[in-house]
């Protein structure tokens, strides 16, 4: 065989290998959420897990930490893949770690509201956590809409909550010109009643479209080009595969909760203005006394920084800190730099407050 024919054969072989990788990455789910955990509580679709500690009890922090993620995404972004997992990191740093997985609401859950999540589900999950951990006090970490839920909970049931960490928390909706979602769900353009009347719950596909359409070029084009350009680099491919598995695994949002999100928060900005009523109780943010760390992603297109900045002025906490970090909504916790910047900062802040 001539050298040019060999080169051509090699080239086709390389293309074949690349296409094989492409097929695998686009057509399969990555092995994610591998950290061992035990299911300790369930209610309807919600599940509470306790991660198996890896540090001896005497070296562990006394105060347990509960992770609460958004309602319309799977929570395993906290534990994306071995070696790149916030859960793994926190376990290695001695935390007694719990995860509240909301599960996927069915049509029978369309009436679930923030009221149910914060006053029925969370208190019961926390009661179980207290029973299992043996500690009355606990810490909460909420991310995205999980931060809305934890903020509401912290205001409604402030007792025993020692530390509150809010990641990219969409709490203040006043600067509508900076929040693209606010524009899209403006009552002039978006009929929330009609959507929920048709679907019951907010469909996962529509939520996924909404999140991706905020940065259409990056999400629909750039993301796939990045993969194609790095098909020969297993490190990039595996990271992409894991993230893509998570990004494409969205779940619907309970209809009434979605209505509250749009009407009470995006349109009326009721939470930050202390006008939000949940289960007949006013959510008064000044009742929050827990130590507060709010983490803001400077390049967040889903929750722009202006949505998370004002909470520190509303709470009564004596210890409060705003930590700003370059990166996006998900990248600050699950990106390649998270293990060097965000996670150590959370540990450094939380560790001394957890004993």
């Amino acid at each position, binding site marked *: 065989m001539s050298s*040019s024919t060999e*080169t*051509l054969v090699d*080239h*086709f072989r390389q*293309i074949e290998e690349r296409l094989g990788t492409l097929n695998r990455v686009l057509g399969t789910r990555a092995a994610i959420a591998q950290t061992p955990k035990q299911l300790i*509580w*369930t*209610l*309807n679709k919600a599940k509470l897990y306790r991660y198996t500690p890896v540090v001896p009890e005497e070296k562990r922090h006394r105060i347990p930490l509960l992770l609460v993620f958004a309602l319309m995404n799977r929570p395993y972004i906290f534990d994306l893949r071995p070696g790149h997992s916030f859960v793994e990191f926190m376990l290695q740093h001695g935390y007694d770690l719990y995860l509240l997985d909301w599960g996927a609401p*069915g*049509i*029978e*859950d369309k*009436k679930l509201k923030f009221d149910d999540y914060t006053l*029925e589900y969370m208190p*019961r999950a926390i*009661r*179980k956590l207290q*029973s299992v951990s043996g500690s009355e006090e606990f810490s909460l970490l909420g991310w995205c809409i999980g931060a809305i839920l934890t903020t509401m909970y912290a205001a409604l049931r402030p007792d025993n909550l020692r530390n509150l960490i809010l990641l990219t928390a969409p709490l203040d909706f006043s600067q509508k010109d900076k929040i*693209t979602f606010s*524009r*899209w769900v*403006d009552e*002039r*353009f*978006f*009929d929330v009643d*009609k*959507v929920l009347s*048709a679907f019951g719950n907010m469909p996962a596909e529509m939520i996924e479209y909404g999140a991706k*359409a*905020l*940065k*259409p*070029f*990056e999400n629909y*084009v*750039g993301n796939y*080009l990045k993969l*194609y*350009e790095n098909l020969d680099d297993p490190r990039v491919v595996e990271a992409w595969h894991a993230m893509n598995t998570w990004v494409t695994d969205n779940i619907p949002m309970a209809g009434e909760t979605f209505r509250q999100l749009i009407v009470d928060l995006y349109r009326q900005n009721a939470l930050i203005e202390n006008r939000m009523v949940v289960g007949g109780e006013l959510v008064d943010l000044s009742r929050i006394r827990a130590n507060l760390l709010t983490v803001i992603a400077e390049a967040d*297109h889903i929750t722009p920084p202006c949505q998370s900045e004002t909470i520190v002025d509303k709470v009564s906490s004596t210890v409060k800190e705003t930590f700003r970090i370059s990166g996006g909504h998900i990248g600050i916790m699950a990106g390649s730099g998270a293990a060097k910047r965000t996670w150590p900062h959370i540990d450094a802040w939380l560790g001394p407050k957890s004993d």
Partner: protein
Amino acid sequence: MSEPTTGFDPFEAWRKMQEANMDAWAKAMVHAVNTDAYAKATGAILDAYLTASGPFREALEKTMTQALQQFSMPTREDFISLAERMTNIELRLDDLDAKLDSIVRKLETPVAKESK
């Protein structure tokens, strides 16, 4: 010396274009979606879809409900009602479980103290 032969790469042209214009494209698209015009357009498309599909969906649901009732089969509403009742039972069981936990702990505490 001649340059090494490069094979056929269907994405090469696209990649070069993308490299050159990625930032500009990205910024332009982000700007485009963050406008009232885009919000109005997507809202109108969604509204048109819901308006068009609504009567069919309602007719289908009505027919299905009637058919299931004719055959004495449970409807979606029946299942929803059942699921809600199940959740209420779960809530009560959870409270009972917590109370039992608390009682067991209280019973165990004096025994532990006495044994010291």
